């Protein structure tokens, strides 16, 4: 097991002259940490992972695993194991041989190979499948074999590239739990790539959110939820998405407020930098509350009953917003619901660039801390 240090890692394809897929990526991953990379399609998650594995060469920057500079080493000298999105099991080999191959190639003793493969098979519930070929397995079973292949190697780092994306919803949840259990048991350093934010929130010790090859924010799941560094992160984490409203900072009596059309909301004191005039106000749907007598109303246009919760879509003072409440059977579309905005739940972002205006979280602090 090992620490991983990514220092100003960049990658551009096409002999280093093409558009860059990853830009100035800086991250320190602690020994035994489970890090999740999330972001929309094409944001460079796989490319970063493949650079750590050694399948792509970094255009610039350095990669250290366990203090060793591996930037220019081939994959076999990095002692990493990787689980691919579509598993990449060797189709002509049995489950046993798939798992044994990495050990066999490294010249491991036959008895030792057998012991380790059997042990991995037991822990992943694959004993009955050892003689099968990959095409005779279900998606979930293939996924476990791919994990097993990584497991037997006892690598310094596990790299998992969207390992659950080919599974159905139920199996995903189950495998997610299995990976979490496995991580807890092994205490191994793991990097898990996904574009599913629920997977990211539930699995990650820390989450790294990327966009267009650039880290937007890296932090504990609830940190990202509570203090998103910019509007992109605010929109990406949390479901349904955070409501965002563009407006101006104005004086409202003693206090500062954000005004946008008919909507004027006071903001908490001493929380945000207030030099900029044009700002974006954010509030999560689940933080809106129903408050009888509130001057603000939501005219509901859509009601979605999820079971435990009720999702509303409607207009508040001329702004389209979403709201989430504990189950409310009586609300119908067309209703007017009195809504209040708890002041301490508000987020404020700069309209130019979308960075947070929260004082404790300097705009560049996240990036600077990692790259220092």
């Amino acid at each position, binding site marked *: 097991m090992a620490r991983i240090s990514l220092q100003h890692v960049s990658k551009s394809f096409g002999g280093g002259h093409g558009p860059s897929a990853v830009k100035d990526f800086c991250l320190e991953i602690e020994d035994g940490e489970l890090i999740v990379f999330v972001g929309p399609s094409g944001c460079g998650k796989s490319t970063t992972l493949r650079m750590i*594995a*050694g*399948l792509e060469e970094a255009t610039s920057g350095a990669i250290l695993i366990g203090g060793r500079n591996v930037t220019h080493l*081939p*994959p*076999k000298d990095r002692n*990493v*194991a*990787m689980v*691919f999105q*579509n598993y*990449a*099991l*060797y*189709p*002509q*080999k049995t489950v046993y041989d798939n798992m044994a*191959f*990495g050990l066999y*190639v*490294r010249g491991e003793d036959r008895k030792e190979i057998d012991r380790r493969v059997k042990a991995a098979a037991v822990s992943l519930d694959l004993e009955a499948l050892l*003689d*099968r*070929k990959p*095409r005779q397995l279900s998606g979930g079973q293939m996924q476990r074999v791919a994990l097993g*292949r990584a497991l037997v*190697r006892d690598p310094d780092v596990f790299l998992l590239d969207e390992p659950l994306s080919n599974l159905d919803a139920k199996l995903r949840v189950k495998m997610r739990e299995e990976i979490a259990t496995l991580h807890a048991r092994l205490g191994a350093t793991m990097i898990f790539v996904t574009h599913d934010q629920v997977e990211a929130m539930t699995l990650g010790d820390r989450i790294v959110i990327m966009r267009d090859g650039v880290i937007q924010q890296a932090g504990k799941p609830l940190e990202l939820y509570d203090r998103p560094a910019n509007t992109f992160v605010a929109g990406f984490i949390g479901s349904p998405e955070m409501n965002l409203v563009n407006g101006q900072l104005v004086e409202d009596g003693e206090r500062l407020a954000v005004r946008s059309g008919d909507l004027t909301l006071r903001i908490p004191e001493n929380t945000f930098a207030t030099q900029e005039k044009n700002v974006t106000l954010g509030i999560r749907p689940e933080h809106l509350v129903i408050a009888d007598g509130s001057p603000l109303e939501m005219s509901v246009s859509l009601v979605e009953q999820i079971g435990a919760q009720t999702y509303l879509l409607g207009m508040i003072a001329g702004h389209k917003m979403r709201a989430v409440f504990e189950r409310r059977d009586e609300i119908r579309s067309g209703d007017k619901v009195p809504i209040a905005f708890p002041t301490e739940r508000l987020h404020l972002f700069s309209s130019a660039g979308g960075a947070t205006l929260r004082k404790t979280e300097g705009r560049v602090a996240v990036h600077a801390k990692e790259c220092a």
Partner: protein
Amino acid sequence: MVQDRRVVALFIGSILLLGVIIGGPLVYAIMLSFYSAKSFVGELQWVGLANYAKTIQDPLFWQAFANGLMIALAAIFLQVVLGVGIALVLNRRFFGQSVVRAVSILPYFLPTVVACLIAQWILDPNYGLLKSILASFGIGIADWSAQGVTARGTIVLVSVWLWTPFVITCVLAGLQTIPTQLYEAARVDGAGAWRQFWHITVPGLRSVLVVVILLRGIWMFNKFDLIWLLTKGGPLNQTETLPTLAYRKSFLEFNLGGGAAVATLSFLILAGVMLIYLRLFPIDDAKQGR
């Protein structure tokens, strides 16, 4: 329904047509082998298995069989090894790749007659290009067609030149079907180029190679034109194979029954070998193992 019936009719019709075109001559050849005949128009005389008895006792038949086998095995081996090797090189990305790929399959487009003429032109022991080039360095060459080994070797060489491109093309196509992720998985697992070749490339090419070896095997074993054009079976029957023997008996010695018996036996041997081969190496790899 009407359409269904029409489809069935067309289907049966085409089967019958194929049966007549392919089966007819086959049946006629097999039938001939039970008769004694001096020409296709003359009287046929029933002799039972006499043609077969004579053929089996003829050492020339067994020599021809051995020659054919030797030539076929050597040619297939070289064609496959070279074909895979060249395909692997061509599969890498390099400058001028498409041109080189196109040039590499050129020999396959040559008619066998032309190819054999070119080969003789180069190799002719008296007037050949090779001889004059070597002669200018003061090196003399022996007559390749005067010795069994060199004559067979020349046949193998020309066939390798002509048909390796076929193998290259098939293998190149096969290589495209192997997912690159398998190579990446193997690299992460720690496998070097050699292990990747044996554990990923070869298994991935398995179905292609099974078919290529089957086809090349049948074609080489039945090869007539190339051998006839280069050596006519000589020297002293050293390059005689079953097809040339059947031809010689039928059309030069006017022993139609004997020629037909050789051809029929050759057909049976080939069919037997191919059945065993397909049993050992099923084309559909799903049938292999469990």
